[in-house]
């Protein structure tokens, strides 16, 4: 128990110490939320009149993606490259406790992100609907899916490739994930592809749960598939050194 607590605290400290991780997980989502809520340049889905109503759930989805996929993937990739994972393999910590520590650290950072983003969104006039429970469920499923994608990259690619790849994926999913641009404003074929990806599936369910747009069973199915499939792929392909 002491080892798990110490490892979790270390994971959290290391994450918060990396400036680029804080930029990616806190500053960029807050910046996007504040900027596009006050500067009315974005298309809005039908029936939504104030940008913050649409943006808040989307940016929460972005925040989850930044922590569970990008930050986790990049950090783990470098830990593998520097031999940290190999060295930990020779300690009594063990893989289950290492994975548990990383999971708790990711969830803790997400809680921090939610607290900050919800606070900013409320200050910008957001009035969320009563769907906290389904929203939390969607975030947990998406966290598993994104973490699976990040760890698949981290366990198979060189750290620099994971760094570039995860950031590129972040940008693409930011654009086609229903985060700032509604899926309805994308070309139909692209929107159909996007709906199968975890970012749009999460933003769809969050929009539905928190009352900014529509969602459906398809998004939940996509989230569940990613939540099972991506970690399974990571478990099979991960090379520890």
């Amino acid at each position, binding site marked *: 128990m002491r*080892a798990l607590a110490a490892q979790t605290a270390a994971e959290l400290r290391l994450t918060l110490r990396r400036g680029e991780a804080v930029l990616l997980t806190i500053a960029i989502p807050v910046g996007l939320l504040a900027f596009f809520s006050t500067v009315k340049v974005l298309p809005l889905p039908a029936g939504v009149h104030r940008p913050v109503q649409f943006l808040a759930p989307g940016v929460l989805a972005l925040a989850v993606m930044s922590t569970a996929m990008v930050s986790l993937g990049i950090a783990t990739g470098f*830990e593998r490259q*520097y031999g940290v994972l190999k060295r930990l393999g*020779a*300690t009594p*910590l063990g893989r289950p406790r290492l994975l548990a520590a990383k999971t708790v650290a990711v969830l803790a950072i997400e809680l921090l992100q939610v607290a900050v983003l919800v606070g900013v969104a409320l200050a910008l006039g957001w009035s969320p609907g009563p769907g906290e429970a389904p929203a939390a469920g969607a975030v947990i499923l998406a966290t598993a899916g994104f973490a699976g994608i990040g760890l698949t990259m981290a366990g198979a690619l060189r750290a620099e490739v994971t760094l570039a790849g995860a950031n590129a994926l972040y940008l693409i999913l930011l654009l086609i994930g229903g985060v700032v641009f509604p899926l309805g404003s994308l070309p139909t074929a692209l929107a159909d592809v996007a709906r199968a990806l975890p970012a749009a599936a999460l933003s769809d369910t969050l929009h539905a749960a928190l009352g900014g747009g529509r969602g459906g069973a398809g998004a939940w199915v996509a989230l569940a598939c990613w939540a099972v499939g991506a970690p399974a792929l990571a478990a099979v392909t991960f090379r520890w050194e």
Partner: protein
Amino acid sequence: MPVIEVEGLVVRYGDVVAVAGVDLTADAGQILTLLGPNGAGKTSTVETLEGYRRRAAGRVSVLGLDPAADHAALTRRVGVMLQKGGIYPGMGAGEAVRLFASYYDDPLDPTALLERVGLAGVARTPWRRLSGGEQQRLSLALALVGRPQVAFLDEPTAGVDVQGRQVIRTVVRELRDAGVCVVLTTHELEEAERLADRIVIVDRGRVVAAGSPAELLTAGGGRSIRFGAPAGIDVAALAGRLGAAVTEVSPGDYEVATEATPAAVAALTAWLAEHDLPLADLRAGRERLEDVFLRLTQRP
């Protein structure tokens, strides 16, 4: 009963055979040094003992356990220093020691351990800003923090300055004196000669010699005189005087095939004096470890 027993170990990477049938044993309170050129199979052997590599053949036992099958049990009782890396680059030295201490039931005191490896002054410096020698000493500290019964140190002094080496050697001897079985690898002869209780010379995946430094130095070297003098002296004339074959092993390094009796040594020095030749060094009945090593690991 030996702490480490290896019999007929074979390690393969695909078609490449890294270890081709190694036997060795090591006891508690002993420093066993695996010495060999780069690529000899030292790290593959040690990493099999640490549980990282699967063996293709052979029997391996550490503290009576199988490193692959009983890995979890073994991690509590062994300390590992990898050849490089192994530490979070952004983590401070003290932070790393405290974190690793948390993994074990009865760890050493982190502050005292940092002091012992000479890192108390850089306890707050992140790993990436430590010098190469400081990084190695931190890695050594992390191998010791769990009070291991066996310590595997892979090239512990590589890239370390003179003072750092001194600290590492002192700590390694302290471990040995406390009854720990220390297995270290090096490609540096001097390091092996200084530290080892027992040296195993490995080349191309095989053990080519094993013994205490003294045993290795006398083996096969008892019946000759080695001396240094200017290159190109008249070896035939000298051989005539001494009544024994004289060969110039390398320029300026000579070997006389005779017992190193006082009379033979006196005849040699007298002949050099007559020809006004300076004597650079003289070794009787003892090879240098370097000679043993080169003789055993020479490429055809």
